[in-house]
């Protein structure tokens, strides 16, 4: 049985012509697969490889390289909390501990009992000036406080863990400004942060 839906397969098939080399399509293809399944199963990687006429080994190599690609199940809502220097100094681990308590897990990588949440520590996401920060549902969230985190968790619980409801990938791409650095050279501002957190 196919691991991916018709829709995802179609999306992946459409990728190669957009790149000079077929291999460049592996990353976006994995993104499509992960979006659909939450994480990358062997079957999904094999299917992506077949669709792009590569050996699954190549896809596996790419998938294991990137932190943003998951090989184990994660919660429907996943916190990527930066614990690199600036964020650490500004209390990233307290935020982590707070999230763990709230979602009821012991450690990083663990999925909460209801399957809704998980968290992971990541290296610098390039937004040190708003430390502590995290990536959550394809957006950056800045100047984290326990309250902000609680609000996000509450919102997620409210809508029953429908990932698409609070950040569909396509909607995010169409309506959101890209996270991190903006087109202007000054970088994200407090306003962006407020807007993105809204």
């Amino acid at each position, binding site marked *: 049985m196919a691991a991916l839906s018709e829709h995802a397969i179609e999306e992946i098939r459409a990728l190669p012509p957009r790149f000079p080399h*077929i291999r460049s399509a592996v990353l976006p293809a994995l993104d499509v697969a992960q979006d659909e399944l939450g994480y990358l199963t*062997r079957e999904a990687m094999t299917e992506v490889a077949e669709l792009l*006429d*590569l*050996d*699954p*080994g*190549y896809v*596996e*190599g790419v998938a*294991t*390289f990137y932190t943003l690609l998951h090989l184990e199940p994660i919660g429907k809502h996943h916190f990527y909390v930066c614990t690199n220097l600036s964020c650490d100094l500004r209390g990233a681990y307290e935020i982590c501990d707070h999230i763990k308590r709230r979602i009821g897990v012991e450690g990083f990588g663990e999925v909460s009992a209801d399957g809704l949440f998980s968290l992971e520590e990541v290296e610098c996401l390039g937004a040190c000036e708003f430390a502590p920060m995290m990536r959550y549902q394809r957006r950056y969230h800045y100047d984290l406080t326990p309250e902000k985190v609680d609000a996000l968790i509450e919102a997620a619980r409210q809508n029953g863990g429908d990932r698409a409801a609070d950040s569909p990938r396509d909607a995010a791409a169409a309506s959101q400004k890209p996270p991190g650095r903006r087109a202007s050279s000054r970088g994200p501002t407090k306003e962006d942060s407020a807007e993105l957190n809204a």
Partner: protein
Amino acid sequence: MSVTVPRGTLLVEAAKLVKVEVPVFCYHHKLDPVGACRLCLVEISPGPPKPTTACTTPAAEGMVVKTDTPLAVGARADILEYELVNHPLDCPVCDKGGECPLQDYTFRHGYPTSRIDAPRLHFKKPIPLSEKIALDRERCVLCYRCTRYYDEITWSQELTTDERGVHSYITSQFDQPLKSVFSGNIIDLCPVGALTSRVWRFESRPWDMDHVPSVCSRCAVGCNVTLWKRRHQLVRVTSHENDEIDEGWICDRGRFEYTHVNSPDRLKVPLVAGAEATWEAALTALLEGVQGRKLGIFLPQDITNEELFLLRRLVDGPWQDARVALERRTLLAPPQGETLPIKDLDGCKAIVVIACDTADDVPIVNLRVKKAVSKLGAKLLVVHPGHLDLDRWPDTFHVRPNPGETAEAVRRLIGHELLQEGPVGILYGDGHGAEDVDALTQAVVDLAEAVGGRVMPLYRATNERGALGVRLAGRQEDLEGCDAVILWGPGRPPASARFVAAWDSVPRPEHEGADVVLPSATFAETQGSYTNLEGRVQFLRPVLPVTPPLREGWDVLCELGQRLGMPDMDYLGIFHVQRQASRAVELFAPLADPPAPVPNPTPVLYGPARP
């Protein structure tokens, strides 16, 4: 020292010309440079005041390169210190020990102790990558030679790198056993003991083995190999680089199919009716058995040119009307006129592969085709009903005719846009019996004429070309209907056989109950030569002695001839057979000039002589 080199020559290669060693791990002369290991650091001027990688920097006019300044040597020593961070220092139990560049370089450059006390990475060891190859990740220096070889040379990615940075490790895809027929080359390529052979595991040390360059006996490509022996045992087979044929690669058949040579079941003594006998008695029984009967002879694919010549004489003389069949032969006829040599695939602008799964039938030719296409820019056209590994190339033009209609499909290629620019190489097989071979060959010849290309018939059996050269083993011949058969190699007696003589190195189920059994010498023991699919005669060099009562095939054939009363069968040695064969058979002319029996020693695999 100064040296002038063609534009674009890399510093490592230029240094080789003046016999200066630049240590390397990731650089390999058959792979694209990546600059991954940083071991080749040298100082160049004019240039930046810091060490530069010699494997990625091309030589330039007036460039001065220093390999032995404190800066360069110190940089290399530092790199080695890092390489050794996770190394378990288990050289005493490592099969690479003695031919390991990491050992050599560390001995020459390394600091006596490490200043790094970071926690070491530990891996389970060793991990089987396949039935034949073991991986020890703790020894790996992440030069990526193995994965680059897989990707660049064999067009497959079943060997890959997982994770990134210091956590990277080599793995087979999803930890499944490697399936490629080209997997074994990574053992030769690995500059450390991370990839080792499971067939030659803890068997011996490089320095207590003798080795000779010889020729692979497993197919018609004729790759050059090095045979390694220890205490009268053939313990391993590695590549012996010959750029005209194999470019330093051999397939897994050539590398691993040698264990029967050392088998405890080896036949050593002739048997008559199941009881040990002298050669005298056995040959008498054989001659009596075939006397007056319709004789059929089955030949092993790796029969030598000399044996073929002698057999031709027997079949011209007392054994007239004998039918002769050859193991694994194709249905192809001898080529007419000049054919395309393997090395000339490199210059082809377009390559057509017809009716042959090259990866299976002629593995190393398959790699040469891939090189011509992916590295040298040739166009690739395939005419074959199935899905082949050549389809991995995104621009392969693949025609899939129904079996039996290949000749038609080939004709339709005349005037194809991809064949506008020559030279064109046209490789063709026999479609494993599915095709009318004469029609196919004619279509191929017509295509070649139309596009100004040259053809390469892809024979399968090791010495098929030699057998065709002496007109033995014609296409239609099988042994059905013969009432006496000599089965040399893995042949099956026909139902009609009333007398069976088996002549082989090990007992086989299909030889069960043979009336006479003769022990045969293997490719590791016998003298002689093969003719490869290009028509190139190459000499075997025996690495093991022929210990009586074992006898070589040519010797036994001579005695049979003498007993049958043939004149001039009392050759004084194989050289006399060769001399006569060289005069009698056009294809065997090179036999007049056999190479010296003791060749120059094979260069060591790595280190100074062959980085």
